[in-house]
């Protein structure tokens, strides 16, 4: 691995009894491979010019959780990629979405995927959902130095809790703070608009298909008001990535499925550009 002088060192490190954490193994033997390693100081303003991933939404539904992300990466005022993928499978019962500097975020996801599988292989058991969420906090915290330089990346983590039989959502800050979110959450530049939209559309105990549609609506609203978030692209047929995690495991919607949800939102917005509305009941009028 790497240079020859390093090779012997790592070879003995393989044999040393250590932790079951891949990121800790990497930190002690090959720290240069960690996401955001290199330790260069980034001139202020430059970080802004790197490709950034934008909006991710997640919502719990009856028996699972859905996560969806738009497909745009933005570098300054340029669209750097139209079909970036920002929502990934982390293991059989969880998924992860990233917002922030794409280069570091993608590496962070790769590291996290290996981390979960590594533990599973070494220990012969799968981490609890809490355990997975805590490990991710440690990995995010390891990038704190980079974040202080402007290389900010935060994940959104969601999974199916096999013990309790529910979908759960966790958000993070750059310092590794881990917060469990109730019902739904969003991260990224368009997250404010997406969350406002989800707040009005979310109902407890919704079915998977309804939750997927709510997320699709939220992404549309985010793209509507945030320049960095991409809406559905019917000309190129690029649709948001939508994944669900249930008792049956992780499942990513095919492009056709995701497209059918996106097209139903698009056609509805043709006549109602601001999306679904609800009826309000001022005091004195009969409610419901």
């Amino acid at each position: 691995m790497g240079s020859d002088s390093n090779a012997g060192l790592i070879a003995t490190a393989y044999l040393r009894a250590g932790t079951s954490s891949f990121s800790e193994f990497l930190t002690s033997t090959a720290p240069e491979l960690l996401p955001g390693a290199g330790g260069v100081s980034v001139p202020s303003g430059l970080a802004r010019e790197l490709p950034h991933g934008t909006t991710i939404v997640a919502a719990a539904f009856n028996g699972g959780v859905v996560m969806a992300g738009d497909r745009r990466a933005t570098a300054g005022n340029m669209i750097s990629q139209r079909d970036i993928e920002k929502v990934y499978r982390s293991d059989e019962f969880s998924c992860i979405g990233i917002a922030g500097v794409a280069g570091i975020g993608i590496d962070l996801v790769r590291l996290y995927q290996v981390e979960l599988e590594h533990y599973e292989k070494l220990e012969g058991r799968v981490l609890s959902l809490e355990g997975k969420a805590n490990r991710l906090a440690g990995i995010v915290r390891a990038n704190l130095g980079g974040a202080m330089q402007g290389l900010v990346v935060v994940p959104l983590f969601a999974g199916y809790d096999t013990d309790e039989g529910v979908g759960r959502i966790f958000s993070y800050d750059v310092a590794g703070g881990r917060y469990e979110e109730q019902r739904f959450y969003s991260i990224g530049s368009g997250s404010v608009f997406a969350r406002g939209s989800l707040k009005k559309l979310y109902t407890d105990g919704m079915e998977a298909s309804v939750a997927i549609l709510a997320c699709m609506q939220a992404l549309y609203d985010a793209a509507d008001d945030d320049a960095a978030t991409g809406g559905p692209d019917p000309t190129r047929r690029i649709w948001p990535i939508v994944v669900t995690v249930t008792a049956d495991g992780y499942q990513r919607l095919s492009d056709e499925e995701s497209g059918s949800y996106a097209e139903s939102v698009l056609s509805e917005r043709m006549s109602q550009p601001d999306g679904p509305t609800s009826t309000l009941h001022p005091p004195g009028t009969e409610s419901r």
Partner: protein
Amino acid sequence: MPFYVSPEQAMKDKADYARKGIARGRSGVVIQYEAGILFVAPNPSRALHKISEIYDRIAFAAVGRYNEYEILRKAGVRYADLTGYQYDRQDVTARGLANWYAQTLGSIFTDSPKPFEVEIVVAEVAEAPAEDQIYRITFDGSVNDEHGYVAMGGQAEAIAVVLKEQYTDNMTLEAALATAIAGLAAQANGDQMNINASQLEVAVLDRTRDHRTFRRLTGTRLEALLSEVDQASAAKQGSTQRTPTDQVSGESSGEQAGDQPSAGTTEQGSTDSAPDTEGDQGASS
């Protein structure tokens, strides 16, 4: 204590020591079948595995001292995960891993006062059976590139005789398992081993699966498979001539340990053979 020990003598002593340690345990078998590679090892423990997943298409099987091959297994997982993280998942190969094991075991054998008492097999399943790779690595770091089947452990030679006789390319999973069990039975030397689901650790690398191909066969799945193996070998036993040597007759007549090679000619052979070991009727073939 002599002041001088010749290198030849030192190496011979170490090799004898390692061989003796390995011979104390039960042997294991790795065998190719049409849809992948099958691993079988006698192992009453549900938690301390002899067979494990290393990577997407690579698995590891070992015999010998548990603590020593467990060190090697974990090292292999670290090697594979680091290589895959640094390059790409498809760049993790059994050949690279086998080489790494060979170097490591070789230097442990020469440098440390006590050699590892282990023998391991690293196997990788490919798109087609012809490209499958099976490597057997012994305590001194020698590597053997095997094709079709391999036995490991102190009684590997006796087992390999049976495997060689029964192995054919593109066997079904049931046939491969039957062959592996027949091979393992050859090490019992008349003192018949239990071949039932609770005594066997069985796993496959299934080439038809995506991503992670390793799968353990346990519980009802294994029991169903074993009962098919029983029926098939009972039928076979009824129709074909038995080889008259003790060792080989032990193999497919299950627990009827070679002293009555014509018994069990019916499907019900196991129930009327009055087994002298208790509680393992289902295990008879």
